């Protein structure tokens, strides 16, 4: 894919900010709330400058109470506003699970479609910044489990720019996961809009399919390059949407390659990778030429020391090793 002439290089962080800004300009019901989002500009500086531009009514700092301010956001959405709620990390979102799972996800269903909750809840996920176990986990699967929620994970600058806009346009709750390792990544912003439901083939290949999302996409692309040196042509699929899963795109790819490696920064047990692997097996069983391989995080709370943190989460060489296992049936020397 080549960038159109007018595509400007920008960062993932700036692309998110531009999306929020545009939404706030276009519709005055839009406001953003969260811890330190105002003057400070947000823990990851996504809202930097918005306070100055839109003022304290639309860029609101909240107390350190996820249950409280997420609940307030849901209430505001019920009341006709279009709130964007920022949660510092997915770890802290657990305090708001009751609001999200018991309220946001259920009201449309329980009201027979009378009430929509057009809230967008953004949160950071993932490890790699030495923030230790309480700030580094990948709990996307907790939300992807719940009917009534839409869960997305933009992995590219373009998706950061346009998926947030699409999330704002969705009448129901959308959880947006932003991987902390992506904020500084940069690239061209291709023209939107984009959808919130399909997976995207980031690199075509014929020998095996690597399925990844968020922070694992770039690692998978790098692994695919290395696999190319071993004469293995790997197709890399960026899930983009974690709920619903785009099983059709996965199935189409695996029908073609007959082999799949699922990369997940979450833990392996009872996780997203299990769901994807099961889906592939259900959809493509008679085309599989090897068991579906999962490359996931070690079953430990993410450690603080750099070397242990690196060892705990999937790295490029782990993905290559998984791929070679699927290709050759034995663990290759990688």
């Amino acid at each position, binding site marked *: 894919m080549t960038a159109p002439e007018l595509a400007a290089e920008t960062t993932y962080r700036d692309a998110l900010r531009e999306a929020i800004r545009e939404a706030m300009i276009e519709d005055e019901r839009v406001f953003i709330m969260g811890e330190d989002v105002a003057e400070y500009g947000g823990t990851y500086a996504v809202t930097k400058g918005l306070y100055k531009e839109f003022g304290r009514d639309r860029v609101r700092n909240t107390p350190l109470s996820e249950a409280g301010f997420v609940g307030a956001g849901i209430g505001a959405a019920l009341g006709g506003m279009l709130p964007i709620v920022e949660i510092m990390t997915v770890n802290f979102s657990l305090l708001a699970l009751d609001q999200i799972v018991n309220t946001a996800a259920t009201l449309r269903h329980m009201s027979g479609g009378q009430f929509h909750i057009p809230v967008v809840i953004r949160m950071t996920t993932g490890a790699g910044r030495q923030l230790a176990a309480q700030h580094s986990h990948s709990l996307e699967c907790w939300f992807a489990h719940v009917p009534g929620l839409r869960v997305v994970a933009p992995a590219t600058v373009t998706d950061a720019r346009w998926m947030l806009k699409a999330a704002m346009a969705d009448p129901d709750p959308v959880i947006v996961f932003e991987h902390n390792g992506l904020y500084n990544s940069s690239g061209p912003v291709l023209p939107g809009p984009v959808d919130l439901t399909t997976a995207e083939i980031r690199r075509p290949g*014929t020998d095996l399919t690597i399925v990844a999302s968020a922070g694992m996409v770039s690692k998978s692309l790098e692994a695919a390059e290395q696999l190319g040196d071993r004469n293995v042509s790997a197709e890399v699929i960026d899930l983009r949407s974690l709920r619903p899963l785009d099983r059709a795109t996965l199935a189409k790819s695996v*029908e*073609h*390659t*007959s082999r799949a490696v699922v990369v997940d920064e979450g833990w392996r047990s009872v996780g997203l990778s299990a769901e994807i692997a099961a889906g592939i097996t259900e959809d493509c*069983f*008679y*085309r*599989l*030429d*090897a068991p579906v391989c999962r490359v996931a995080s070690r079953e430990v709370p993410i450690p603080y020391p750099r070397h242990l943190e690196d060892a705990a989460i999937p790295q490029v060489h782990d993905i290559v090793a998984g791929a070679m296992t699927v290709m*050759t*049936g*034995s663990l*290759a020397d990688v």
Partner: protein
Amino acid sequence: MSETAPPPTATARIFKMPSLGADMESAAVLEWLVQPGDLVQRGDVIARVETEKSDIDVEIWEKGRVIAHLVEIGEDVPVGTPILQLGTSVESTDPISATPAVVAPSSSSTGTGPAPAQVRERVFIPEPVAEHDLPPTSEPARDLRASPLARSMASALDIDLATIAGSGPEGAIIARDLPFNSMEGTVEAPAKSQPVAIDRMREAIATRMARANHEIPHYHLERDVDLGTAMDWLERSNECVPPGERVLPAALFVKAVARSMAEHPNLNGFWVDDRFQAGDGVHVGMAISLRTGGLVIPTIVNADRRTISEVMSSLREMVAGSRSGSMRSSWMHEATVTVTNLGTNGADRVHGVIFPPQVALIGFGRIAARPWVAEEQVRPRPVVTISLAADHRATDGATGSRLLSTLAHSLEHPEEL
């Protein structure tokens, strides 16, 4: 009735359908050559069975008294299925234990003996058979490891997976092991109604050889050897013995190959899971062509430890057996190297295709009188061209070259063999 209770269960044994080749999955008994009540000795042929490839005489490797046939004639059963119940040791003098097959059920009369009809009756063996010895009730394909893709391709292409050697984990058959494999992932299956013209042996050869050419980076080396000394030596020794003990050059070739392989173990074995696995002995497979087309490769186990006349008699039996359709199960051992000998009427040299997962194949062309330079003179000598096809993943040309040198030296000094 306690007085007719069976002998201790420890003496009951089961003989299972043996594996008569790496890719054999099942076989059917065509004919029983032993009957209940017969004593069998080690080496006895107990049955003739039909496998995918050929009919084979199955030998038994223990002695005992046959109690019962456990499978019906013509019933295709998986390898490992108990086929014969062997009774107590033959030394036993206990009349009951010696003839348990005709022990009548407990309702039998206590008169002068069981009625003839009851004698003829096949009584199910009363000894409890260990759980794992019970015949599997599943269909044969259940034990066969194959990927779902391989299974669906095989089904679409009407290929019997039992004829395919797997290269996947733990020998699983995966898509690339199948002939007609398309890496594009779109296999155009021929219409099922289309008759499959090739016979099973052709199919098996096609599969193996396609896999060999697809997977194995072959390298080929040749060496001409002056067989003058060897031919003289054979002629002299054959003069003194009756026809049945005469030795042909082929036996010399096999023996020389076996000895040379023992000295060059890197060429004797298998390429499995991306690494070389040395053979547990030198087992020479001998390619024997059939006049009806196709070939079989019976194996001479531990050929390096056999004398030339032992090798010769094995070869004679193998050739006669293969061509008259009676292969013996002891020939079905997995070979560590294959020899192909084009014989007296054949071509001058052969550039062979390795039989996977082996890593070498040694070919002998016809022995022909050719001009040969020795001691600065050109003389007509009986010369053979020996060729080596070797797997470049396992060895390099230098190793192969050394093997051919050793082989040439052996054939030039037949007395050392």
